[in-house]
């Protein structure tokens, strides 16, 4: 008698007893008119995207609260208008004029006007938002000559290119009449969202689901197509796949179905696996370096480490092909800025060994040159797995890396506050423009405690100069050119090592229509998403 059939028999007995007690042999699925049920893995404490511009918040809130413009595959400047219909910068870079959509109403019935935009920008985006603080640092005033015009005034020249690229992420507009005169951080509307979007947030059961229902007064003609969107909280990694197969949910975004399950689930009839729709939120696999460590302050050692990594292996084996090898700090998904002509580091163990010898770190009697503390970030399976790989790759060139695994809060403290690392593995995000969350990875002068920033003590005056200059270069071509130089210096001097870049995977039932039709699809408003019955 094998273990398998023994336990199954016992289980069936027990299961049968239980089934008899509930006296219903099958599950009837409650399938309302057009209700899309989506897997969610987190429940943000603050759901207000104007304050917290993060993907976890956008995933749910972007259907309720809209930005001025959304990213688009084929729109002008890569944008599709939302609450703004046009935007224009002045020649001196000190003002940007937005024309706003007419006839838009908040979910509570009040009209949406330029006053809401001015209030959101000055009272929330600039002082409170995690990314807006940077983008709107020099915003002085927002003039509202009429109800559908908002003119942003800056104290220093601010590139329109940056504002444009940042719009989808930093410009969620919230209603002035609910926030003015209150404590913004604790305002109840941060949880019970009121927006202008295609869906209203009507119910939240902590630990179970968010229920979004159709906004009948939505400005988009014939939209939204769905009656309801439900975000069902499924914390377990295996849960989303099982629920999809059982047809309890219809969609799982942000790789909620683990990469290792994709090959199997893609063969299940009625289920499709989609890798498009994350182009504007590219995650980057990066080796962060502590330049305070004597050996790592030597560029030859950093180059050697770059040569020791087999990027193809990382992409094929760790990401199972759902990623691309990186050449530098700007990903290929950002064609506006991407420069392919930067120095690259082919996988070459012999060269890595030679560079390390040259740097004066000869192999000792036990075959090692020196030891390092390696801290992989725990946020993704792939960052942890790459930690294991990097340890082996470094061992092949005589560097002994000691892996230290910790949970999120501990990792954050050790790397970004205490600098207790030699090498760390992080997943920073490229958000459409290098100035939003990318230059911060190599710029000097950032205080300790800021996650996803240069905490390795790297300082390069030339690079700092280019970053500062690009921040106030209004001309788009000249600014783009500066960022090409920026990429070259980073790729040459290697303040950190870019290994791979990846987007997420969406798994959906075939009945879900118009999936992944923009580069930020999972975090866009889903007004045209539909269910085919």
């Amino acid at each position, binding site marked *: 008698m094998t273990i398998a059939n023994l336990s199954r028999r016992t289980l069936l007995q027990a299961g049968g007893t239980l089934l008899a007690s509930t006296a219903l042999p099958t599950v009837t699925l409650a399938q309302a008119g057009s209700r899309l049920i989506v897997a969610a893995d987190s429940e943000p404490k603050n759901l207000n995207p104007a304050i917290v511009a993060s993907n976890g918040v956008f995933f749910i809130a972007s259907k309720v609260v809209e930005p001025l413009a959304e990213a688009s595959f084929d729109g002008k400047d890569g944008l599709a208008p939302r609450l703004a219909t046009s935007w224009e910068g002045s020649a001196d870079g000190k003002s940007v004029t937005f024309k706003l959509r007419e006839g838009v109403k908040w979910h509570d019935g009040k009209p949406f006007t330029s006053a809401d935009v001015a209030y959101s920008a000055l009272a929330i985006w600039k002082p409170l938002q995690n990314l807006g603080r940077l983008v709107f640092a020099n915003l002085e005033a927002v003039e509202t000559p009429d109800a559908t015009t908002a003119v942003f005034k800056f104290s220093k020249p601010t590139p329109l290119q940056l504002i444009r690229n940042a719009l989808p992420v930093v410009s969620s507009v919230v209603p002035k009449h609910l926030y003015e005169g209150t404590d913004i951080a604790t305002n109840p509307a941060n949880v019970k969202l009121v927006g202008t979007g295609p869906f209203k947030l009507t119910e939240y059961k902590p630990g179970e689901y968010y229920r979004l229902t159709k906004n009948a007064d939505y400005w988009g003609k014939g939209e939204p197509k769905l009656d309801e969107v439900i975000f069902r909280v499924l914390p377990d990694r295996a849960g989303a796949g099982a629920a999809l197969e059982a047809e309890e949910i219809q969609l799982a975004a942000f790789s909620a179905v683990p990469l290792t399950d994709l090959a199997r689930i893609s063969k299940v009839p009625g289920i499709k696996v989609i890798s498009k729709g994350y182009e504007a939120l590219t995650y980057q696999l990066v080796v962060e370096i502590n330049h305070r460590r004597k050996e790592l302050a030597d560029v030859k050692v950093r180059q050697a480490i770059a040569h020791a990594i087999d990027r193809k292996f990382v992409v094929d084996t760790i990401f199972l092909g759902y990623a691309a090898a990186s050449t530098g700090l700007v990903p290929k998904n950002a064609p506006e800025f991407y420069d392919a002509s930067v120095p690259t580091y082919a996988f070459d163990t012999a060269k890595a060994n030679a560079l390390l010898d040259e740097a004066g770190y000869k192999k000792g009697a036990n075959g090692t040159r020196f030891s390092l503390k390696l801290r992989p970030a725990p946020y993704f399976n792939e960052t942890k797995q790459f930690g294991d790989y990097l340890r082996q790759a470094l061992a092949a060139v005589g560097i002994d890396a000691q892996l230290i695994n910790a949970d999120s809060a501990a990792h954050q403290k050790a790397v970004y506050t205490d600098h207790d690392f030699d090498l760390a593995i992080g997943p920073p995000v490229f958000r459409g423009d290098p100035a939003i969350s990318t230059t911060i990875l190599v710029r000097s002068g950032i205080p300790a405690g*800021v996650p996803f920033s240069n905490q390795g003590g790297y300082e390069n005056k030339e690079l700092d100069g280019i970053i500062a200059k690009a921040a106030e270069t209004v001309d788009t071509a000249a600014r783009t050119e500066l960022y090409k130089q920026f990429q070259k210096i980073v790729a040459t001097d290697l303040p950190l090592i870019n290994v791979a870049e990846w987007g997420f995977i969406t798994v959906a039932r075939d009945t879900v229509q118009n999936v992944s039709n923009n580069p930020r699809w999972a975090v866009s408003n889903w007004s045209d998403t539909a269910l085919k019955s």
Partner: protein
Amino acid sequence: MLLIVVVLTFLLLESASGDAVDAYLLSIGGGDATVAQSLRQAYGLDQSMLARLWLYFSSLATFDLGWSVAFGRPVLDLILERLPNTLLLMGSATALSFGLGSALGIVAGARPESLRDRVLSTASLILYAIPSFWLGLVLSIVFAVQLRWLPTSGIETIASGKAGFARALDIAKHLVLPVSALALIYMALFLRVMRSGMAEAWTLDFVLFARSKGLSRSRIVLRHVARNALLPLVTMLGLQSAAMLGGSVVIESIFAIPGFGRLAQEAVSGRDAPLLMGIIVVSAVLVICVNLIIDIVYAALDPRVGASEPNT
């Protein structure tokens, strides 16, 4: 006793690297140093450890469990919201494992060393060796994904609008798999304790006496042997209720049940000291209550316990 539990929890969480602000900043994908500082002030994390511990105790004295920093809500609200789900899960699992375990234990122990006994004992050993998360996943794949008899996860059908009996039935259906996953493993334990207790009782004098009196076998099994073997089982029930509270963390995650265990896990990863301590305090009270009830049951089962006159 509760005091020690609270202080230990506090120190344990304190010794973990990183605080609630670190966890929060990560969850939103970045922030700057001024945000971190103002958040630490708002959460009271800029004060010394002793000051915070004292603050917690003084509010606990007025039955105020404090404010959860990770959820931004009162701890008591969070706990009251999740507790019923866990009590339902644990209560059903305990009842099922105890009932089924002792019943099968009687079957096995009625004729020790018989074929029936050997099969049941071996099966229970194998069952006991299975990790509950694995059993949970397998049950889910077989009964929810393949056969589609039962829902894969959740405590009830989401936004179903069901009420009354229909809702109770719906919750019962959702509980079948998680309860089975939790109960089957503990059932094995109860079965084995019951069986060995009975095997031992068969050799005792009073059983020999009962047999010589000519009592029927079934009467001997139930009234004499089983009743005696039940005593250690009841003791174990008290101990297991605490263990099951721990086991429910895994099962609640797998089956997406918004319960106590999952809340505890979220409290730890969010470095949410007030919430975690609130959970520990309530769990401790819960375990104490269960053991109190067990003691009373014990007295009812065993006339030697709790006799009013002192023994000679």
